[in-house]
């Protein structure tokens, strides 16, 4: 047994592995309660239809089916609609109209999951199909059918958002020596965590208490939302306990509240018994929140010698039938305004229009911080196009336009203050590691032989760790986060946080933070998250915010404890506080290292011999409101070979140099980058959710939606630079999503780099063999 404190910078093996390796994790579907019922959902086959009747008799006649719940049933309790995070509302169940395929229409409650499924099959619904609006541009036409008849505004336009100086930007474009413009579509994709969503709701009529075990990344926020939504039914926040058990991957898909959760709660209240709802994969893919779906037109202005002067971006955002995006409330387009990226623009302007269509709602993240991938992909594709247009090397073009290290803290043209960065160092390291100039020579040689090889770069800047409460809130809840540390008399620790790990390894990383600050071995520290009855209030884990917010809170709480420990040590050593020297794990008297008290001795004294005038105990809680976001960055270089016969893109090498500030656990950080890169590869080459003109989803299962397997995924090569955050207590930044943000553009840029000499300027992701094959055929290229 290791009894030593490791702290920051050590590849400590994960504490959480012990249960997962033995099949002893507790995921949502592993929870079984006495008398538990199962809920299953009837879904719409139509993208837009009027419901004229729901026939429940046959379902109710099945032995074991206890109830069928419809929108009209919920409406009697004011529960047919629920608020979204974006000032919109969303149907829990429809009263008379469905707005997308696979929308929830009715819920069946039964004694077991097979009988519930039988009940779903036996519910008959009469529909009158209505015309579906699938293309958001068509949705904006004046003659388009209005999708949301419940709203006062009879239009499919939801909101307009803009940032930057429109006039100055337009002027810069008029005066520019060179401009480029490109339409970029970033398709609708789905996070597809391997565990789907679900819950177990237990209403206790005697105590008037609701316990909700739920696949959620933000348990406290859920508790408050439930209290606000169901307050009129007498459900108060102290009688609501939300527990997020072990979570089998989140990536943003477990932030929203889906109708199934609400239905399970309603069914538990209705029946007085615990109710479990677990969605299957097809429900998960077809109805749960999507990501992206941005139709972008981007333009760059520059001087003839390749210095960027202005950026202009116009975007139509397809939000589906409800604006149920998961963004901070003041940011309907998330942090898309990070789209100036790593480059020093004097002026920029971005605008986004949100639009309703007959598709499932969402606009959540796909392992990225609020639309940051959309922004990063846009600027990195555009910079590459411009470099190629100017016949400049894309690496040299970037080096010429980067924000320089001496410009930090750097105020971007769209209003962010980047905390720290050294973009040139990261790119040069990636170039050295991959042998950039040798690859360029090889490419020229292969091109002479008619072979298609491309080299793509992406030098992204992320914006994570929301965030400062003056700017960031969700439904008014400020986006701080929290930590509570309790040191027991024997020096062992229980620490609780307001976040919730979904695989990120918080139980280990947070223990390392405390070990680093207090010198207590990681083995002596238990980290707990996810139970709103015990953990301090926090906004949860998404947008790479855990280390920037809750991790910082852990350090601050530990420092509060250390301040008290110093007083206790002074009392025990009969010395003045100022004469004590802290070394990891103990205080000693200056000049007398043998006169010392360990943190464990101090903890014991805190409960057995605390100084007069000081409270007993050794605990602290911290709510950390960061002064700024953190801005991780990196440079990725991808080398691809393209098969001229099949159009297949083969990734030969991929080097990722990341900078996430000071690193707490390098093993976990590297693992996060590997995973993020794979979720960057996925939309670049494989994943897309599409619909036909009637709003039928084309491919709503893993048979058609292609998650990369071990065969498609390359052997990622990772490296790092370290530029600490100046404002984070540990100098750390957050890393879980950097690679998802940075990778798609590197891959797309490599493919276009391979094809540019054939006159190919852009192919929308996912770059499938079919798209490439078509482009090659059009240009007369054959094997």
């Amino acid at each position, binding site marked *: 047994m290791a009894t030593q404190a490791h702290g920051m910078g050590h590849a400590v093996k994960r504490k959480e592995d012990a249960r997962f390796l033995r*099949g002893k994790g507790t995921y949502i*579907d592993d929870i079984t309660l006495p008398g538990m019922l199962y809920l299953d959902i009837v879904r719409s086959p139509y993208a837009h239809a009027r419901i004229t009747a729901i026939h429940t008799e046959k379902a109710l006649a099945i032995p074991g089916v206890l109830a069928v719940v419809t929108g009209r049933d919920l409406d009697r309790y004011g529960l047919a609609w629920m608020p979204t995070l974006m000032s919109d509302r969303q149907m829990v169940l429809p009263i008379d109209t469905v707005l997308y395929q696979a929308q929830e229409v009715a819920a069946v409650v039964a004694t077991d999951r097979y009988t519930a499924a039988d009940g779903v099959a036996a519910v008959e619904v009469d529909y009158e199909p209505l015309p579906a609006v699938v293309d958001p541009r068509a949705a904006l036409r004046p003659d388009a059918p209005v999708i949301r008849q419940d709203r006062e505004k009879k239009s499919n336009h939801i909101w307009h958002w803009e940032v930057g100086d429109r006039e100055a930007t337009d002027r810069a474009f008029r005066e520019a020596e060179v401009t480029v413009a490109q339409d970029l579509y970033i398709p609708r994709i789905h996070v597809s965590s391997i565990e789907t969503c679900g819950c177990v709701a237990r209403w206790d009529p005697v105590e008037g208490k609701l316990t909700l075990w739920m696949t959620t990344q933000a348990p406290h926020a859920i508790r408050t939302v439930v209290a606000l939504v169901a307050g009129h039914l007498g459900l108060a926040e102290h009688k609501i306990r939300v527990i997020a058990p072990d979570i089998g991957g989140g990536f943003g898909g477990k932030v929203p509240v889906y109708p199934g959760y609400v239905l399970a709660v309603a069914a538990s209240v209705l029946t007085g018994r615990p109710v479990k709802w677990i969605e299957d994969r097809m429900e998960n893919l077809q109805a749960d929140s999507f990501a992206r779906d941005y139709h972008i037109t981007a333009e760059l202005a520059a001087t003839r010698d390749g210095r960027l002067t202005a950026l202009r971006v116009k975007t139509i955002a397809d939000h589906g039938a409800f604006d149920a995006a998961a963004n901070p409330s003041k940011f309907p387009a998330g942090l898309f305004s990070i789209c100036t990226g790593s480059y020093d623009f004097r002026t920029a302007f971005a605008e986004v229009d949100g639009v309703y269509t007959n598709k499932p709602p969402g606009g959540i993240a796909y392992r990225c911080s609020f639309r940051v991938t959309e922004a990063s992909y846009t600027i990195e594709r555009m910079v590459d196009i411009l470099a190629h247009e100017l016949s400049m090397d894309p690496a040299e073009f970037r080096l010429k336009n980067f924000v320089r290290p001496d410009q930090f803290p750097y105020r971007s043209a769209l209003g962010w203050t980047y905390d720290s960065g050294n973009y040139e160092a990261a790119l040069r390291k990636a170039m050295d590691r991959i042998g950039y100039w040798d690859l360029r020579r090889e490419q020229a040689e292969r091109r002479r032989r008619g072979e298609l090889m491309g080299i793509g770069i992406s030098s992204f800047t992320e914006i994570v760790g929301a965030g400062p409460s003056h700017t960031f809130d969700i439904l008014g809840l400020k986006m701080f986060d929290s930590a509570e540390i309790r040191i027991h008399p024997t020096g062992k620790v229980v620490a609780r946080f307001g976040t919730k790990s979904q695989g990120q390894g918080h139980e280990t990383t947070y223990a390392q933070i405390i070990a680093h600050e207090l010198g207590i071995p990681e083995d002596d520290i238990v980290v707990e998250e996810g139970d709103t009855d015990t953990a301090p209030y926090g906004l949860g884990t998404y947008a790479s915010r855990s280390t920037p917010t809750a991790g910082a809170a852990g350090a601050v709480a530990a420092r509060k404890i250390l301040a008290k420990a110093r007083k206790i040590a002074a009392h025990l050593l009969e010395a003045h506080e100022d004469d004590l020297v802290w070394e990891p794990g103990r205080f000693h008297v200056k000049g007398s290292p043998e006169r010392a008290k360990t943190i464990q001795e101090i903890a014991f004294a805190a409960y057995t011999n605390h100084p007069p005038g000081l409270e007993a105990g050794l605990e602290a809680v911290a709510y950390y409101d960061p002064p700024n976001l953190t801005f991780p960055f990196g440079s990725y270089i991808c080398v691809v070979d393209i098969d001229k016969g099949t159009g297949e893109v083969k990734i030969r090498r991929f080097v990722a140099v990341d900078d996430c500030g000071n690193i707490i656990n390098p093993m976990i950080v590297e*693992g996060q980058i590997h995973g993020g890169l794979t979720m960057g590869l996925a939309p670049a080459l494989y994943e897309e959710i599409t619909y036909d003109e009637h709003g039928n989803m084309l491919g709503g*299962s893993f048979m058609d939606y292609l998650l990369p397997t071990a065969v498609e995924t390359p*052997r990622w090569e990772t490296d790092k630079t370290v530029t600490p955050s100046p404002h984070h207590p540990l100098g750390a930044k957050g890393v879980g999503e950097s690679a998802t943000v940075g990778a798609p553009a590197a891959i797309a840029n490599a493919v276009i780099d391979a094809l540019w000499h054939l006159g190919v300027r852009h192919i929308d992701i996912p770059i499938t063999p079919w798209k490439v094959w078509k482009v090659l055929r059009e240009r007369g290229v054959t094997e």
Partner: protein
Amino acid sequence: MGYRVRVTVNGTPREAEVEARLLLVHFIREVLGLTGTHIGCDTTNCGACTVLLDGRPVKSCTVFAVQADGRDLLTVEGLARDGELHPIQEGFHERHGLQCGFCTPGMMMTAYALLQRTPAPTEEEIRWAISGNLCRCTGYVNIVEAIAYAADKLRSTPAAAGRGS
């Protein structure tokens, strides 16, 4: 109701009466109470439910419980012996081959079957062997290394091979 299923699970005989339509994965999870075997899709793609049936890996969401009658089942709960992790489990821990842990049991069972028939697999053989098991967290690099770690360890200490060998 009405079909009696007798299986040997992780070395222990068990039996129960089940509906004909009950999937093996639900039998394992809900009748036998072994919840380490997970469900991640409906179409036999994700591999989270992989178990060994008579030593061969199967996706237990696509096998009926009655088809397992009279046969031998190995699930993740049967990997460790006498409190000692199997080298595959050890490899996943040492090489950080898991994050959320949801795909991990199925991934390890597939790796177990691979190493039974291919004790010294190449990286490509490992990648193809686990290509029916999806992982969304790790990017597979460390899973491949974890399995290679286990292969090395099993070759140097054959006694660690465990059940079914």
